[in-house]
């Protein structure tokens, strides 16, 4: 009885594999979500102006920090290495020590792992850090930008109040393309 069950299970597995491997090769291919997001960071860097002293702490680098259990830092690394904004090259840090978060120009907070809203809130009022998250709740709690996917396309929303309270200058073009959120 049991042997039969497993024979059936194994044949099911085999047929599913056979069935699904065939059509998959011809699927339409687009870039992955993380690759597109990484490119967005390049544009954010272009359209946001940080106070000049912030670059002293980073030796002139434009520093992007990634918080949480994610390897998005690698996508950023791949996309942004050797790119320049003005004189500034990019520098990517994953999970920097808490005390160093104030020296990040952009902070990406992944939805997973240890980065809970409570822990982030402690850094979110840093006036020189552009905070980017993945959920609406993130900007509701004071975050500045969040990504979302709409009809398979990457969109972003900006918390205008949070930007106003910061030392950052955000170009009107970026604000125009974003969905705005004001509490």
């Amino acid at each position, binding site marked *: 009885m*049991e042997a039969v*069950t*497993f024979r059936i*299970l*194994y044949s*099911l*597995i085999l047929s*599913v*594999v056979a069935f*699904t*491997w065939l059509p*998959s*090769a011809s*699927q339409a*291919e*687009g*870039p*992955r*979500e*993380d*690759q*597109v997001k*990484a*490119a*967005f960071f*390049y*544009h954010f860097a272009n*359209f946001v102006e940080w106070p000049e002293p912030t670059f002293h702490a980073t030796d002139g680098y434009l520093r992007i920090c990634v918080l949480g*259990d*994610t*390897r998005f*830092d*690698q*996508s950023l*690394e*791949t*996309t*942004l290495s050797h*790119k320049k904004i003005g004189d500034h090259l990019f520098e990517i840090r994953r*999970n920097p*020590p808490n005390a160093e978060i104030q020296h990040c120009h952009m902070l990406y907070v992944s*939805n*997973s*792992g*240890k980065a*809970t*809203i*409570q*822990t982030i809130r402690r850094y979110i009022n840093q006036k020189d850090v552009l905070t980017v998250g993945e*959920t609406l*709740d993130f900007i509701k*709690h004071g975050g500045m930008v969040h990504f979302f*996917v709409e009809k*398979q*396309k*990457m*969109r972003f929303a900006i918390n205008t109040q949070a930007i106003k309270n910061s030392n950052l200058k955000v170009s009107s*073009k*970026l604000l125009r*393309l974003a969905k705005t959120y004001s509490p």
Partner: protein
Amino acid sequence: MRFSKEYQPLYQIGPLALRLGLFILVFLGIAAVAVGEVPDNFSHSDLTELTLEELMSVEVTSVSKKKQKLSESAAAIFVLTQEDIRRSGVTSIPEALRMVPGIQVSRGSKNQWNISARGFNERFTNKLLVLIDGRTVYNPLFAGVTWETQDTILEDIERIEVIRGPGGALWGVNAVNGVINIITKDAQDTEGLMISGVGGEEEGIVSIRQGGSHGSDLHYRLFTKYFNRDTSFNAMGAHDDTRMFRSGFRTDWEPATQDHVMVQGELYTGDGGQQSNVATTPTFPYGFTTGNEDLEMSGGHFLTRWEHRWGSESDMALQFFYDRYERTENTIKATIDTFDVDFQHRFEFFRNQEILWGLEYRYWMDDLNNTQGTSVFPDSKSFDLLSGFLQDQITLIPDTFILTIGTKLSDNDFTGFEHQPNGRFLWKPAEGHSVWGAISRAVRVPSRLEDNSQLTFAPNATTPVPTRFLGNKKFKSEELLAFEIGYRLNTFERFTFDMTGFYNQYDHVRGTRVISLLPPTGTLENNLKVDTIGAEFATNVQLQEWWQIRGAYSYINMSVDGPINSSLNTTGRATPHHQGSLRSLITLPYQVEFDSWLRVVDKLSAPNIASYVELDLRLGWKPLPNLDLSLVGQNLLDNHHPEAAPSLFLTTQPTEVQRSVYGKITWQY
């Protein structure tokens, strides 16, 4: 250390080579495909050359995720975070597991924990796999975990992932009812000096950790911890005070962004009191002597793991560890040395598949000192285990329907070849809602004690006469066919909900058979069939920004079928039907936290242990950024309450859990 070459006949090399050959053949095909696979995607084109407007019109696929989000797994998974551990006020890993739905935790004494997932709770629970930073914590003598020796600095635990149910293709031979994966922090996250002290009437703990770095790629930490736990309660007088000292290190080195090398090691030594009945003569009635003793526990491990990534489409991990375990008590003395090599490789296959496969080889040898009470034959032996797994995760509809199929194959010295297939699906009908289901087969391989041993027990609550049990050379693997279904709601940051239902059919479960009435002698036999059915719920509610509620409830019913003269009436009776946990986490102004935790555990039926309700309270204050103070009261509702039934094997006097209050100070620099 004694090597047992007399028990390792040469002809074994033949089958081993054969087995290796077979495994290599099975996986060669996969490896060939893996090597040939060139990650394409858009890595060659530069997306930053597009304008923002163009970028916003690109269609994205989110098929591949290097690390799947836990909320998207097709399994009953629950994660305890460092924040959970800190705010619960627990001082040991077993206590932390009380927060997890579907896990049964009961304390037998200050050095005995009965921990199981989905039933079969007893001291020598054998259907659970526990990993600490990738190292299997497995005692092959009884196929279980010696929880009393598993510890580390709790502040350095990053998270504990708990999977109830068969661990799928990925995990080891005894991942039948669950996997507990304890993950400590990357050394990068533990820089600086931390000193933490816990002091109360029941226990004193001192933890010291020093973290540092060399350049920006190499991070390390050194730690040491000592605890002293006081005697608990027993009406007849208890003797279970326990002390343990441990010291270790962890190094994380990232020479390049694609590589991560982790090296860690630890040594521990300790002793714990128990009151035991030990047979002293070889014949009935065995001349039992009852007395207090101090068992000695010591050991250590060394582990190194290399992880390498090829973009985000493919990665691998190669791990080696050595573990030594030593234990001396009146009934038995044991030394076990384990060597383990593990390789895993993951890669994307076409656009919609992700393949994960791995190979593991483990070699261990034990050296035992037999007594009249417990004898294992031969008293020194070596074993090896070869296993491999293959899993394919197929995305049938992007972001909506994912199918995972896989199997684990293994070859062990007791029962030979074993296969453990499983099939899973994950369906996301709408953003934030996931439905999953799984059918899996899992086996629990025999332990050394079940294979060939002679155990002599003093009269106890279930058997009023001295009894002897003999192992069974024909003991087979216990088998499970598991059906699971679950639903997860993750739409809102303020409210999450998770529920799982399961139906498990076990066959060839260990029972007993009487072989002689005088002197009373029994043997172990695979003569029970067990069905379990149950449900587990977990929820997290953010009532206010400053107030969070976390609840968990689980129900399980075990029905056991087997011959009348077997252990029919005792199997599974130490598993509570209902368990509930309700935690409230309140963050007050001026860096003050007030947390409370209410636990309800149903009665146990054999032997009788009453149901109980307990309350823990914690008041925390952070007067300075680097100073944490807290006051914790545990098990506040009773002076003392019993939780665990005495084990049938190696019976020792159980003790009761007492009310306790402690103060804690943590200083970080």
